[in-house]
């Protein structure tokens, strides 16, 4: 599809009517927020691997399971 055709389709489908325009705004805002929120959190957790609570939880659960003083690292 050429650029002119794309513009025409976009206009006809979204921008021409207020109802579809508002709907497009709301849907894209929601999608953008989810995308940024989830990827941002994933990035933060990836950078801080091994420093979060779930790692501590795992470690102390393992310690409690083998509580004969065997230190697992």
């Amino acid at each position, binding site marked *: 599809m050429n650029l002119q055709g794309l513009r025409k389709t976009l206009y006809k489908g979204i921008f021409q009517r207020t109802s579809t325009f508002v709907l497009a705004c709301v849907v894209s805002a929601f999608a953008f927020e989810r995308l*940024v929120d989830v990827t*941002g959190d994933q990035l933060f957790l990836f*950078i801080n691997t091994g*420093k*979060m*609570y779930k790692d*501590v939880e795992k470690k*102390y659960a393992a310690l409690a399971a083998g509580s004969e003083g065997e230190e697992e690292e």
Partner: protein
Amino acid sequence: MAAIVGRASREALLKVSGNVQPQNARNLSFQNMSKGKKMALGALGTMTAGGIGFAVALNTAVLASDFVVHPPKFPWSFKGLLSAYDRDSMRRGFEVYKQVCAACHSLEYIRYRELVGVIFSKDEAKAQAAEATYVDGPNDKGEMFERPGKLTDVMPKPYPNPEAAKAANNGALPPDLTFITRARHGGPDYIYALLTGYKEAPAGVNLGEGQHYNPYFPGGAISMAQALYNEIIEYQDGTPATQSQLAKDVVTFLAWCAEPEGDTRKRYFIKSMVFMGVFMGTLYYFTRGKFAYLKSKKFAAKLK
């Protein structure tokens, strides 16, 4: 990003539509500015840069006249724009606080529930709280009673009030540790250096009764005795409890106490940077679009 958008769209943005005559409008550029104006602007720029440079130089001074040793910078787990507090270290730090520091220092603004999901599970935090007793009441007979701690209780205080704390410590008040890494010059580095920096007093330094020598403490004479020694406590996870390990862990815990919202702030930093990147591109496009109209116009007055 803005540069890419600009390069791709410069032509389109600067294209004038309609029957406006494209002209080179020079009244918004530096090219035809008078010499005096150019010099004035240059002087202003130089003065601003000089002022900023002077301020920076003042702030990075050595301060060699101070009677205090400045702490070195340490590579903290939470140092950096995107670095979280090391929860493993924090949990050990809580053990150190509870078994060593809590003998004299309160932690008034931290509640047990705030540790849930950070270093303890809910049950572990409840068990920690239940180890302390609190005076509560009055009950229906109007009497105060004692009960084990709950998740909503603050950390137990070692002394009932500041006067009792002073009376027990040679007149010196052990500070509350909640915001201590924010409340001292040098922050976590200073607390670490102080905890590990106790020395024999050099010749010529007179210490009062119950005072100790620490070069990192302003003035050198500190009322707190050295608290951390090798193997003074035993860690639950079997980490060797050397003095530096103890100090590092407790400082990590106290840094979290002072800024428990630090990790959330760093998460939002990532998200706001993404958003602002997109917003900056949009704003650049919008600005160029608006200015294309203005910059291609020339106003002239014909005087008769």
